[in-house]
């Protein structure tokens, strides 16, 4: 923690750190928050202009977009940076993968079934993500109070996984027992 009151150089460093770590544009109001009411809007604007000038000709540039200010990589670097994670094909979260696996192996299932197996609440965003991808859909309702939706995997899901049918997925019994018996015992 720094000694207050902060000097201008420190304020500028804090603004820079905030903008570099935010992961999204920050509005002027948000950028004032670190200073707890001890910075004028005019000062903030001035410091942002200075920061912008400081970063000219550097690896990132400070720009103003609809919802605020953000640092972004210079456009001529984009292609290089894209090579780091080429399948920005972002990956599904572990929770999403497990939810999908449960639906594939235990279908048709309700959200309640999934929660029971995983032991944690199902994030509605995950279901939405899988439905939007057209990997799962609702195939009916279970006849219990609340009539929860029953989810199953779709044909698109099989296509995307290069499977002709679910029965091509490995049966799990084989996994748990695989290291117990590989070969029948040899006769002496």
């Amino acid at each position, binding site marked *: 923690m720094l000694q207050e009151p902060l000097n201008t150089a420190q304020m500028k460093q804090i603004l820079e*750190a905030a*903008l*570099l*770590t*935010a*992961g999204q544009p920050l509005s002027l109001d948000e950028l004032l928050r670190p200073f707890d009411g001890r910075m004028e809007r005019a000062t903030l604007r001035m410091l942002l202009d200075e920061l912008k000038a400081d970063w000219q000709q550097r690896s*990132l540039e400070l720009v103003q977009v609809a919802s605020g200010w*953000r*640092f*972004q*990589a210079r*456009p001529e*670097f*984009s*292609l290089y*940076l*894209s090579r780091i994670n*080429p*399948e*920005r*094909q*972002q*990956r*599904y979260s*572990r929770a999403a*993968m*497990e939810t*999908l*696996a*449960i639906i*594939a*192996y*235990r*279908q*048709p299932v309700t959200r309640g079934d999934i929660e029971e*197996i*995983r*032991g944690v609440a199902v994030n509605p965003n995950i279901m939405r993500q899988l439905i939007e991808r057209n990997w799962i859909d609702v*195939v*009916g*309702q*279970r*006849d219990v109070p609340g*009539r929860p939706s*029953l989810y*199953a*995997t779709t044909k698109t899901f099989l296509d*995307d*996984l*290069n499977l002709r*049918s*679910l*029965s091509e*997925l*490995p*049966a*799990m*019994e084989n*996994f*748990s027992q695989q290291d117990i018996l590989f070969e029948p015992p040899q006769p002496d």
Partner: protein
Amino acid sequence: MQTQLAIDVRIYGEQLDTIPQDLYIPPDALEVYLEAFEGPLDLLLYLIRKHNLDILDIPMAELTRQYMDYVEKMRATKLELAADYLLMSAMLIEIKSRMLLPKPADIEQEDDPRAELVRRLMEYEAIKLAAQRLDEMPQVGQEIVVAHAYFEQIAVAGPPGISFEDLVAAWQAVLQRASHFQHHRVGRAELSVREHMSLVLRRLQRDGMVEFMDLFDVVNDGLPKLVVYFLAILELAREGLVKITQQASFSPIYLQAQER
């Protein structure tokens, strides 16, 4: 030495920073008090530390008496008595009784019965302190803030992909964690039935009421597939997912999804 409480303990609305020195705990506060401990070892460690006892020289009789007091109080307030605490009482009493019994002369070098308890207490204390240290370390998501500026991803940004192996690995992880492992063994045959359950439901959703015979494509599907279809329908009926109706004997049988 006083044990710093890691959680917020209040007795009669007053915040408690350290555990009281005297043994008397107001019964209403006992539940909160015991929640401050992570278990019987933690409680024992506290009793020893509170009296600044040399752990090497634990006065078993006194300690066991105090410990039993706590267990008695738990019972008095009808708290659900944790099995862990009872087990620890039994261990203390066993140690105490072994110390009271005269040692047979021929067993010269019998281990001190307290040795195992001391070992466990020391190990637990080390872990407890290690946990505090870990908790105090700066962490990403709390004190540590990681750079995350924006750049424009140029490569074609398709939706996330998965592979067959990803899915199998995810399911394996689920099985490994599921406490009721037994209920979730899925064989190849069962999987194919479950797939057909989804197919039948999808068909019923599209077409409403469907005659039983129409569900089967007798011409194109081989016998194994027809059997799987039939098993799927039986399973759907068993799980209450479809309604099967027939007006009279020998009249057509109809299936429909359970209505909204």
